[in-house]
């Protein structure tokens, strides 16, 4: 794996591709704090949507609402055309109406967290086969074969029997990506995957994510790595204070930003 990020040829996403993620007029309040103020977002199969924005702009909250790690206050979320059924929670927010539906939807979304969140009491390969075996009902032997392929792919096959605490941050995050890939996700969700890594470890993780983008995986990526977002994204969404301030193809967003806030943001993060 190369540490440098190569320019990745962008694959074409056809207009007829099915909509993998559809978010409409999403609101999220934490108490009095209004984090998302009516966000809409759409990702078709093969899209790589990069969500950028300043700290506190709501990017992580938006991503976490897609698989209901946060319950939206109001709005519509569709995953693979299936609308997540929400019911009022009695406090002016919502709860998933059907727990089984949420669990089914989640099991096909590959989430990668900022702080890796590999399960510490399991070895790397146990982490990777956990969801296929226990949630998706794959036979253990089959899951192990798949897991070894995935770990080889992220360059961690020799580390498969090592516990996460004995791996570097970059290795843990690559392992977490293998865990997400093991569920054969329709969409991968990355929540600032390199933000808690030492600078010299960022490249190896971005290399893996870049490869996935190149092979046409559908993904939504919350990131602070602007150069990377420009290279791999098919679309970039700029969030500011809980609203989509501007969105478009990466060259337009980074090359000729229209709104003043985006211009300021790009100047600031360089």
């Amino acid at each position: 794996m190369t540490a440098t990020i190569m320019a990745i040829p962008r694959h074409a996403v056809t207009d007829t591709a099915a909509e993998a993620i559809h978010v409409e007029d999403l609101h999220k309040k934490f108490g009095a704090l209004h984090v998302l103020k009516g966000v809409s977002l759409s990702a078709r199969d093969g899209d790589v949507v990069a969500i950028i924005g300043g700290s506190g702009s709501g990017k992580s909250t938006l991503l976490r609402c897609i698989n209901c790690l946060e319950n939206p206050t109001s709005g519509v979320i569709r995953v693979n055309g299936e609308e997540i059924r929400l019911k009022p929670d009695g406090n002016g927010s919502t709860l998933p109406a059907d727990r089984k539906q949420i669990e089914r939807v989640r099991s096909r979304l590959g989430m990668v967290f900022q702080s890796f969140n590999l399960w510490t009491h399991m070895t790397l390969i146990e982490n990777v086969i956990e969801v296929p075996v226990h949630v998706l009902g794959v036979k253990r032997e089959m899951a192990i074969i798949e897991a070894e392929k995935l770990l080889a792919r992220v360059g961690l096959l020799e580390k498969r029997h090592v516990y996460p605490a004995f791996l570097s941050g970059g290795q843990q995050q690559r392992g977490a990506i293998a865990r997400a890939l093991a569920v054969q996700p329709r969409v991968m969700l990355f929540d600032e995957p390199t933000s808690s890594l030492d600078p010299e470890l960022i490249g190896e993780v971005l290399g893996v994510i870049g490869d996935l983008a190149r092979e046409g995986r559908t993904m939504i990526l919350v990131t602070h790595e602007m150069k990377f977002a420009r290279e791999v994204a098919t679309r970039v969404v700029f969030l500011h204070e809980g609203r989509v301030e501007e969105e478009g193809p990466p060259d337009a967003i980074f090359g000729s930003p229209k709104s003043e806030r985006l211009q300021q943001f790009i100047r600031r993060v360089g």
Partner: protein
Amino acid sequence: MTDSVFLSLAQTSMFELLAPTPPGWGGNLVRGFINSIGIGVGAFALGLVIGIGGAFGKLYGGPVRRDLLQVYTTLIRAVPELVLILLIYFAVPDLINRLLETLGYGRIDVSGPMAGIVALGFVQGAYATEVLRGAILAVPQGQIEAGRAFGMNPRMLMRRITLPAMLPFAIPGLANLWLVAFKGTALLAVVGFNELTLETRQAAGTTKAYFTFFMAAGVLYLLLTLISNVLIGRVEHWARRGRQPIAESR
């Protein structure tokens, strides 16, 4: 001076007194010891089951369940164990029997060991609830969140993630509880259950060799603690697999 008196007394009669068969009392002591272990294990196991339910109930249950559990842990931890044992040993069976009679059923006999296990287990459960609640709270939120994000249902989350992840944090507290449970069986002497302390008192009272028998009982209690420490150490080592070893203080 007094030491040498004790010593000569102990030396002349100790082995005869502690012989495993009558007229020696060793067999009685061992029987009491085994009874104590049995009750201790039963009470600890019951306490663990109550504790797991209680901890999850307190953390994730609805308001009614949380309040009920709060009442349970507060009351049980406020009242002396001895009072609770007397209560459960005498009052609860009486209550059950009265209830059974009103409903037209016959009386039941509550066996000594069973009442002992229930009484001590009930006390253990209150403490275990708090130990386990603390341990669950110590699990990094991201561990549980990752389980949710991959579609685990609450039961699987508890079985596959939360319980194994909280174990390293729970073991020191649970080890305390186990030793307390085992020593707590001595309280059952007051209700006439033949555990180690009662057997010892009977042997000592009959032979007047108080020193010998209470020392012997002390050694047995200590022996179990030492064996427990070894076993707990192994369990802890296993539970901490996947964690960086920390420099042990010695």
